[in-house]
Each structure stands twice: as structure tokens, then as C-alpha cells.
């Protein structure tokens, strides 16, 4: 009889760590803002802003959870969202399509772009990172070509309802759409072949192949779902602003990836955390809203997203390291000759920079007026 006996606290916590992490950070932010800016942060109107901001990213985070679980990545979603929104805008404004047809077109075109991404990755064997990054340029380029710098505005009610409508005495419609996509995502992950195979493919691609799973096909499905959800985000964004232009949605990629990764889905594949992604989106929205509430410049947003990605990946990697040895402490780091060399390198570069700045400062004249 083989019986699993060892089960320490770490193992017991492991299934929940994905949800505990972001929740802890959400409470941290709430606590911090509760002390610093309680009046403005916890206003009902501000909570509404947070939810509306989160809603836009929820569908994409759901789909990205599958893509990343399969060890993939999609860096083209911002451009897919912008291009599908522009195409939809043209269909509605120029060709006078009914709004509902326009919305369905956006979803279909989005999934078509996703399908294209998937085929480029699986059939042409272009690595996902490069493939989707290049396609990001392509989609963005087409959006610029189509819109020619125009801002298309004033859409039918259906579009604005999707983007910023609200059921009376209830949640805003985009929030409901976001939650609905996550219910769908949870079902897909737990109860469908697609979800099961996504985990298997990310966990052990060779094993998945050996057991007869069509790895390429399920990868294409994930990118298609991603494209469709990016298209949906494009519609929601258009409705929210009641306007769209070719340069819309610039930070979607990293924002969504940050949300998924901070939620505990592993970039190394196999570990999917659907609820974690939900919490991750909420967390990022709260964080960005906190930056705004504290009157910190908008441009710090992208700094914050990047730092969150690095910290959460580093944290989860550290968590998974089984032979963690904390006993030696910081001294051990400098005992290794390799680390010592890296440390010296940091020193040399810093020194060179300081010397250069000093030279520049000593030899500087009066600044010329630019322009």
C-alpha cells in the first residue's frame, strides 16, 4: 500500500496561495489608502471607477490565463482590441451596420486575429514572443492605416451600454460582462477538454503529445479565445469612451499579463489560477486608482505594472523552489565568487556613470534653448 503521508503547511496552503497573494495585497492597498486618503478612496463613486476600470481587463485576463497556462504569451492584444474597435466603428459609422451586427463582427474579427496568431505560432513555428510582438506591429499598423489619425465618436446606445451602462440599482453592465466571462473561464478550465488539455500542454508538452492530445489545435483555440476577448475589450473600450482611435489601448498587453501573473498563474506553464486572475485584475485597478487618488502622475502606471510583474514572478519562483535555504542569509550571497564578480560589475558601472556625470557637470556651459 502506498500512502501519501507527508503533508506540511506549505503543501496545504499551495492550492490557495494564488488567491491569498492578491487578496493580501488588496487588503494592503485598502489599509494603506484607509490611512492616507480614506475619504476620497472609499467613496462609492470611486469604487465604481475601480470596478469599471477592472471590467475592461477582465475578459482578456480570463483568456490570457489559458494562453499563459499553455506556456504561451500574447503581446498583440492591445492592437487587436484597437483594430477590431476601429473596424467595428467603420462598419457602424460608415457602412451603417446595425450596432449588434457590429459588436458580433468585432468578436468574430478578434477571434480571427487570434486564430492567425495561433497559426503563426503553431504552423510557422515562430516563437510566441516574437510572433505576437510582430503581429502587434501589424495590427497597430492596420489600425493607423484605416483610421488615419481620426477619432471616431458617438456610437449607438448598445455600444455605450456595453461600455458604461448600468442596470438600475445594480452593477455596471461592463462589470457584469467581466464577471460572466470569468464564470465561462472557470467552467472552461475545470470542465472542458480545452481547459484540461491547456494545463496538460503547459505542464508537460511531450506527455500531452504522447497521450494523443492535438497540442497545436488546442494552442490555436487558446489564441482564438484571446483574440475574441481582446475584440470584446475593444468594444467595451469604445463604448466606455464613446470614441475610438488607432492609438487606443496602448498598455493592454503588460497590464493583462501582470494581472494574470500576480494572480498566481505560472509563466512556466501548467499552473492556472482563474480566481487569482480575477483578483489580479482587481488588484491592479485598485493600485492604479490609488496612484491617481494620491495625485501621482499617470505615467507612473506603466512603471507600477512592470514592477508588479517582476516582483510577482520572482516571488512565485521563490515559493516554488523546493530546496530553499534561508539559514545562510545575505553573507552566502557574497561568498559565491560569481556573485562577487557581478557585484563588482555593478560597482564599476555605477562608478563610470558618476564620473561621467561629474565631468559633465564641471564642463557644462549655459543650456541652449531647445527648438
Amino acid at each position, binding site marked *: *500500500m*502506498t*500512502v*501519501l*503521508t507527508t*503533508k506540511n503547511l506549505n*503543501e496545504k496552503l499551495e*492550492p490557495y496561495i494564488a488567491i491569498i497573494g492578491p487578496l493580501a495585497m488588496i487588503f494592503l492597498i485598502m489599509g494603506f489608502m484607509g490611512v492616507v486618503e480614506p475619504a476620497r478612496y472609499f467613496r462609492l463613486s470611486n469604487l465604481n471607477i475601480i470596478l469599471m476600470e477592472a471590467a475592461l481587463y477582465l475578459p482578456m485576463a480570463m483568456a490570457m490565463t489559458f494562453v499563459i497556462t499553455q506556456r504561451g504569451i500574447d503581446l498583440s492584444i492591445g492592437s487587436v482590441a484597437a483594430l477590431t474597435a476601429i473596424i467595428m466603428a467603420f462598419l457602424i459609422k460608415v457602412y451603417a451596420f446595425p450596432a449588434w451586427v457590429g459588436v458580433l463582427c468585432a468578436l468574430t474579427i478578434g477571434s480571427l486575429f487570434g486564430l492567425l496568431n495561433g497559426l503563426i505560432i503553431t504552423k510557422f513555428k515562430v516563437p510566441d514572443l516574437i510572433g505576437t510582438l510582430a503581429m502587434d506591429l501589424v495590427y497597430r499598423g492596420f489600425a493607423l492605416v484605416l483610421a488615419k489619425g481620426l477619432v471616431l465618436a458617438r456610437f449607438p446606445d448598445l455600444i455605450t451600454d456595453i461600455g458604461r451602462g448600468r442596470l438600475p440599482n445594480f452593477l455596471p453592465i461592463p462589470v457584469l460582462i467581466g464577471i460572466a466571462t470569468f464564470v465561462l473561464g472557470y*467552467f472552461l478550465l*475545470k*470542465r*472542458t*477538454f480545452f481547459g*484540461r488539455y491547456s*494545463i*496538460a500542454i*503547459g*505542464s*508537460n508538452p*511531450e*506527455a*500531452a503529445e*504522447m*497521450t*494523443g*492530445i492535438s497540442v497545436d489545435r488546442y494552442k490555436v483555440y487558446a489564441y482564438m479565445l484571446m483574440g475574441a476577448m481582446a475584440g470584446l475589450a475593444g468594444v467595451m473600450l469604445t463604448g466606455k469612451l464613446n470614441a475610438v482611435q488607432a492609438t487606443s489601448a496602448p498598455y493592454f498587453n503588460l497590464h493583462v499579463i501582470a494581472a494574470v501573473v500576480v494572480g498566481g498563474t505560472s509563466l512556466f506553464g*501548467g*499552473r492556472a489560477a482563474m480566481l487569482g486572475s480575477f483578483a489580479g485584475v482587481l488588484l491592479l485597478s485598485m493600485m492604479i486608482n490609488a496612484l491617481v487618488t494620491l495625485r501621482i502622475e499617470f505615467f507612473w502606471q506603466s512603471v507600477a505594472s512592470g514592477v508588479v510583474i517582476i516582483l510577482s514572478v520572482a516571488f512565485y519562483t521563490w515559493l516554488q523552489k523546493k530546496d530553499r535555504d534561508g539559514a545562510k542569509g545575505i553573507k552566502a550571497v557574497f561568498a559565491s565568487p560569481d556573485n562577487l564578480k557581478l557585484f563588482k560589475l555593478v560597482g564599476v558601472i555605477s562608478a563610470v556613470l558618476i564620473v561621467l556625470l561629474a565631468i559633465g557637470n564641471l564642463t557644462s556651459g549655459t543650456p541652449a534653448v531647445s527648438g
Partner: protein
Amino acid sequence: MVNEKPIISMKKINKRFGGVKALESVNLEAYSGEVLAIVGDNGAGKSTLIKVLTGVYQPTDGTIEMDGKDLVMNSHSDAIEKGIDAVYQTLALADHLDAASNMFLGAELSKKFAGISYLDNEKMRSEAERVLKERLGVVLKNMDAPAESLSGGQRQAIAIARAVYHSDLRVLVMDEPTAALGPQETARTLKLIDTLKAQGLAIILISHSLDDVFEVSDRIHVMRRGKCAGVVKTNETDKQEVLGLIVGANKQAA
């Protein structure tokens, strides 16, 4: 020998890859309720031989018979259909999935509700629990635990359970099942082999460990340079003789 007639008999199997003769006129017979060990040096043709047996490779010439009838296999799935399956050293488990999901990977059970079919996780789980217990005598304390947290022996059991469940399994090939295991886990795996043997399966065990081979096998088939260097009964031989056959120190006809 439990049965008079072999389940599987491979006759004069040749396999060439271009000019390289990987197998030369190899005969092999496997009987129900018997453990046949295949031993040999690296490159002796063990892997090629079992790949022919499991339908992964097609022999250049020679025939394979099952129950005395000709058997033609064009792919590994043909072999599985006929009740021949293999468990490889690299166990083909998805580390992040639990035992039941792994056992049913690629062949999940599903049910339908309102025209939508979805995975029947409950049924898969109870079936997995049943097969592990009844056929392999293995009880997992936590069926929800991902495979990565299970021991080598438990992972082995899941891989075998997959083979046992999905076909009317008659011949099980095990490629280096104990290679990555500690002494305790090795003992468990050997016990598992005994359990399966008692159920009437023909087990073909490929191993580098003569200790393991002498502990569980009934006959030993020695491969050397693509040829069969000899087939000996385990209880009529010793390690010295088998080693001699492996390195070609003494000549003995098959």
C-alpha cells in the same frame, strides 16, 4: 510457464534504419502470467525491439503473432487496441494535474447536460480510485494532489493504471521502471509487477538492474548488438552467466 501457448510471438524480426541493422532475426515470446526481462548493453536493440512490439516502429521483415494469428500494427494506437501498451521511463504525466486527470488524459470521460458535453470529473475520480486500488493495490491519501507531489512509485502506478484501464491490456511493456527510484520505491514497483503478473498479464520488463531482473522475472532475454544473445530461465541461471551473455564472453545459442 503458466500457459503453453504464448500471447505474443515475434518471429525473425529484422529492423534496418538505412544501412544500420538495429535488429537481426530476433525471436521473442511472451506468455500470460509471466515476467520476461529484456537486458542488454546500451545500443543492443532493446528499445528498438519494444518499439516494434508496441507498434511504434514497423519491422523491415519478420512477423508478429498474437494468439497464433498474424498481427499487423501500423501505429502505437493499433497496438493499444490489441492490448499491448508500454509505460516509459519518462512517465508522460502532467505534473500539475491530479491522479485521475492524468489517468484519463487524452481519453476523458464526459457527460452531457442540455446538449453541452463537459468533463465528468467525479466519475473519473472514482474510477481512478477503483482501478488504482483493485488492480494495483495502491491507495492515494489525497486524490486531489497534483502528480508533482506524488512519489516515484505512485507516479508509476498512475502511468500503469492508465494502460490497464484504457485497453483490455494483455501485454505490458515497462521501460526502466525502477531507474529513477530509491530502494523503497523500487521494492514497491517490483511488488506492483508481481500483482499485475498474478492478474494474467504478460509483462515485458526492460532493465539495467540485474538485481531487479533476478527478483521479479521468470525468463531473461539477452540482447547483444541487435541479436538475441540468449534466453535463459531466471531460476536456472545466475548473474555471472547473464553478464557473460550481455558482454559476449560466452557463446550460447538461443
